[in-house]
């Protein structure tokens, strides 16, 4: 029998994998994809808990997370293209214009 704990532990594994990617990678697009991975891990636990509690609210939140992720993809990728046009790179080590 699969309990809600199985899904939550899987979600924790995926979330920490995404954290590892955000902390160690230097390519901005790969960091972006790792953030998508973390968002999806949270979505999985939302849906598992929503099913476990017999409630619809968690699935509605997943809907909004997807809407925010789509908006983030549009703006973030436009930012990366604009940055690449100016600096010819998107390595985050080289992006230090705002460094004090």
């Amino acid at each position, binding site marked *: 029998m699969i309990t809600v704990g199985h899904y939550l532990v899987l979600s924790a594994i995926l979330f920490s994998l995404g954290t590892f990617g955000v902390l160690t990678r230097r390519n901005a697009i790969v960091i972006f994809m790792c953030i998508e991975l973390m968002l999806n891990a949270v979505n999985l636990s939302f849906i598992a808990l929503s099913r476990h509690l017999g409630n619809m609210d968690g699935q509605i939140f997943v809907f909004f997370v*997807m809407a925010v992720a789509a908006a983030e993809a549009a703006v973030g990728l436009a930012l990366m*293209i*604009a940055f690449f046009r100016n600096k010819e790179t998107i390595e985050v080590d080289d992006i230090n214009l705002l460094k004090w």
Partner: protein
Amino acid sequence: MQVLFFYLVALVAVLSGLIVVTAKSPVNSALALVNTFFCLAVFYVMLSAPFMAAIQVMVYAGAIMVLILFVIMLLNMGVEPYKKPTHVAWGTIGSALVFLVSVFFIQRGEPTRAVGEITRDVVLRQGHTELIGKAMFVDFLLPFEIASILLLVAIVGAVILAKKEV
């Protein structure tokens, strides 16, 4: 049987996630991420949320990943050159900490009884899409409208950012 299937799909999801964070080329990362999204869609079907699985495949694996792949191809980046070992070690420590804390809280909480009325039978009888629609347009109407304004602002922002001279 069901448990075996769960572990199989979970294994594929975790391995694809590992490829996402370790692959040298961003294209390989993106393809592995699509694989993870499909595995999560399988889990949504197992949790009797088929509409969410459909959205997962269409919005995430379809729209967002196509956008990301398009930008990767457009920018034409190479592989990442060199990673400092201390950097990787600190990242491992940080993510392991996140994992341990979340597992601690998962183990600590006790599963309660179901309090809502949406059971598997109700979903099968009424249909998941109808239940989602009812919840979205009755209880969550204001957040829905705010989400549409958010998407409009994102479109305008992307157009302004992508113009030639800012």
